[in-house]
């Protein structure tokens, strides 16, 4: 970052001494934008309050580099009406760096898809310059805007100012957490549902679980419009909503021919036909394409490569995967497919999704142990018990393959099989004799 012509590290008369930052100074050259240069500018040109905070913050950060240790501790800080959403940080080296001794973060929920106007960015910058340190992260791994560096005293007024421009606190602690959505229908032709509507509908319905933490542990939702999963929902969310479709991939054969003509036949075979995970694609002798849609798993690869020739079908909806999380404490988990398809178009469809989300959080609240994520709960009780509790029928799409262990009691196998055949008949639109 080229940053004007101010000189760094020149103590100014009449002000506190500028801390030397020999380690951080090494992070200012190079082609990537430097957060150090930005923080130094706050120290040198910010408001008097920003200057003081950031001088000591830089001092503490360089002290961390020197000793290879972190010096922040948590605590309890909240705003009126909320039990979470603030990440308190108190310095353990406040005697050396007193002006940044309280450096709390306000987690603020961004608009789904991370859309902003330039005016909104400026409003946020003005608020944080006045009430905080002047440092904002767009965005944290949690999906929040992180307004970093606030004293305990200023936390309430800073939140009030952000709240007045239409923004609300996100989640922290054992609670519903801030959700994330991909850009989706706002710009992407591959999107299979209205991510923003699903995102707002679910989170705003369950908002109390975010603002008054009372769950066994955290619970996260993420919304990706297709299986490319641009917000990493399967790995990172307890409840991943992934767009998909049931009917055939749409093929524009003229565009297929154009693609082959432009890229070459060998390239098309190597990068599209051969890379289909279920061998569902063949390129015909006339450079048109056949897709065996019954074998297609909606992985998105061919559509990614041939954006003009191929696109998702019309019968769109979502798959839902439950139980993704990071390492603590049993190791990383990915979500398990529990709803292979929910149609998501009408008001009723969205209500059904919101109800399902609510039931899932209720199940989590009632059944998870303290500090247990829902994926761990499922592992502990087994998927069949989880499905029973949620009223979901077992489905082959939930597994890579059926069980390989014979250690299971199967004396009600016939009744279970009967339910399967009845379900299949119902799906096919047939009359069930008992109904």
């Amino acid at each position, binding site marked *: 970052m080229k940053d004007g012509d101010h000189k760094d590290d020149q103590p100014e008369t009449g002000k506190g001494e500028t801390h030397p930052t020999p380690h951080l100074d090494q992070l200012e050259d190079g082609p990537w934008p430097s957060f150090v240069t930005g923080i130094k500018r706050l120290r040198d040109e910010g408001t008097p309050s920003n200057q003081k905070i950031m001088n000591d913050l830089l001092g503490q950060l360089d002290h961390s580099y020197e000793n*290879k240790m972190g010096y922040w501790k948590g605590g309890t800080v909240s705003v009126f009406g909320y039990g979470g959403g603030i990440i308190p940080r108190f310095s353990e080296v406040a005697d050396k760096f007193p002006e940044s001794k309280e450096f709390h973060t306000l987690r603020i929920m961004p608009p789904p898809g*991370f859309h902003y106007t330039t005016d909104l960015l400026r409003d946020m910058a003005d608020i944080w310059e006045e009430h905080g340190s002047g440092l904002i992260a767009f965005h944290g791994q949690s999906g929040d805007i992180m307004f970093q560096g606030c004293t305990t005293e200023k936390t309430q007024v800073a939140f009030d100012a952000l709240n007045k421009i*239409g923004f609300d606190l996100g989640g922290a602690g054992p609670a519903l957490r801030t959700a994330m959505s991909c850009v989706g229908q706002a710009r992407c*032709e591959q999107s299979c549902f209205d991510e923003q509507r699903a995102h707002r509908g679910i989170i705003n319905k369950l908002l109390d679980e975010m603002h008054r933490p009372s769950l066994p542990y955290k619970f996260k939702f993420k919304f990706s419009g297709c299986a490319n999963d641009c917000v*990493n929902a399967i790995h990172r969310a307890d409840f991943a909503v992934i767009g998909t479709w049931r009917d055939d991939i749409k093929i524009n054969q003229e565009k297929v021919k154009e693609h082959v003509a432009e890229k070459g036949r060998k390239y098309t075979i190597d990068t599209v036909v051969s890379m289909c995970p279920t061998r569902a694609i063949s390129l015909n002798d006339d450079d048109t394409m056949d897709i065996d849609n019954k074998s297609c798993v909606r992985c998105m690869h061919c559509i990614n490569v041939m954006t003009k020739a191929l696109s998702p079908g019309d019968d769109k909806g979502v798959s839902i995967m439950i139980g993704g999380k990071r390492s603590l404490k049993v190791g990383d988990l990915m979500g398990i497919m529990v709803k292979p398809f929910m149609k998501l178009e009408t008001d009723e469809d969205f209500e059904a999704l919101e109800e399902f989300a609510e039931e899932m959080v209720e199940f989590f609240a009632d059944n998870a142990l303290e500090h247990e994520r829902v994926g761990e709960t499922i592992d502990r009780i087994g998927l069949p018990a989880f499905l029973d509790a949620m009223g979901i029928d077992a489905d082959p799409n939930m597994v890579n393959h059926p069980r390989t262990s014979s250690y299971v009691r199967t004396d009600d196998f016939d009744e279970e099989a009967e339910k399967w055949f009845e379900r299949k008949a119902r799906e096919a639109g047939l009359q069930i004799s008992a109904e």
Partner: protein
Amino acid sequence: MSEAAVKPRTPDEVGVPDAKQYMHPAMLENYGNWDYHDRPRVGVLRHVSKSGQVLFTVRAGTQRQMDVFTIRKLADIGDECADGHIRFTTRSNIEYMVTDEAKVAPLIEKLEAEGFPVGGTGASISMISHTQGWLHCDIPGTDASGVVKGMMDMLHKEFVREHMPNRLRITTSCCQINCGGQGDIAINVQYTKPPKINHDLVANVCERPAVVARCPVAAIRPAMVNGKPSLEVDEKKCVCCGACYPPCPPMQINGEDSTKIAIWVGGKHSNARSKPTFHKLAVANLPNNAPHWPEVKEVVGRIVAAYKADAKHWERMGEWIERIGWNRFFEMTELAFTKHHLDTWTGARKSMNMSAHVHF
């Protein structure tokens, strides 16, 4: 102080705001009605809607932790050279949307002149997804923004062009909780020593049963030490994960001898082609020489170079390794395969080769 002054303001629990009030008008008009996209050049996406609307997106890297001057500069660029609407990607890149193609080149020129590299699209190395580190985290083993800045300086040339086999996603995490997430390459703190316990503080600071319960290998038990109630760790069982440290800061996991860096490869979020995967250990015990991480950079550079030279177009890191085999991966990257690469955790057996398939 008057009563009105001390009465707290009742919050307006608005929840998630409606993005449509901030969205570019062309996005709003064509919401759910896009037809296809292509990339006229690196860092630029061109989306075409079914109504014929064309929308250009210019993507640029940011430092994520932004001071208000940088934010205002980005906003000014959005007003001067774009349409006043921006968004951020999952990896903290900024995107400017414009409907007029003539605005694209000046916008790129302005962003680059102001020090924001334009790129991060297609088969490039995008911004590293990272954590808070020493800047703000309460349990970090290393920094995040600083080491990422150094790493992105090295990888910048692959951000501003699309010369990789497919996209390459890098993450860093400053402890083993792995908040940075899964990546084609993940650079994570890996502790090598059990926690060092300050027995004078445990009873006052830690809720001992909760700490005992937090250990994934049941290595922690209550104990009286020097006449004080404390905790002790069975160091033979301890896997040095650091899970006890957040609920019990006197169980210090960090230290020069303990805080090392491990590099993992082959994580993938997308379902395209292969199913999503977790990253796998490539090398551990690299020194935590922040901010420059020279030893880490050297290994990352080798892995990136091997992948770039050998993977087929569209193969992600993990898919490439699956094709060539781990034998060749370790050969090509000149890394050691050790007993520590053999998983010992729950489900480890599923990671073993139970076939006669062997790579030579």
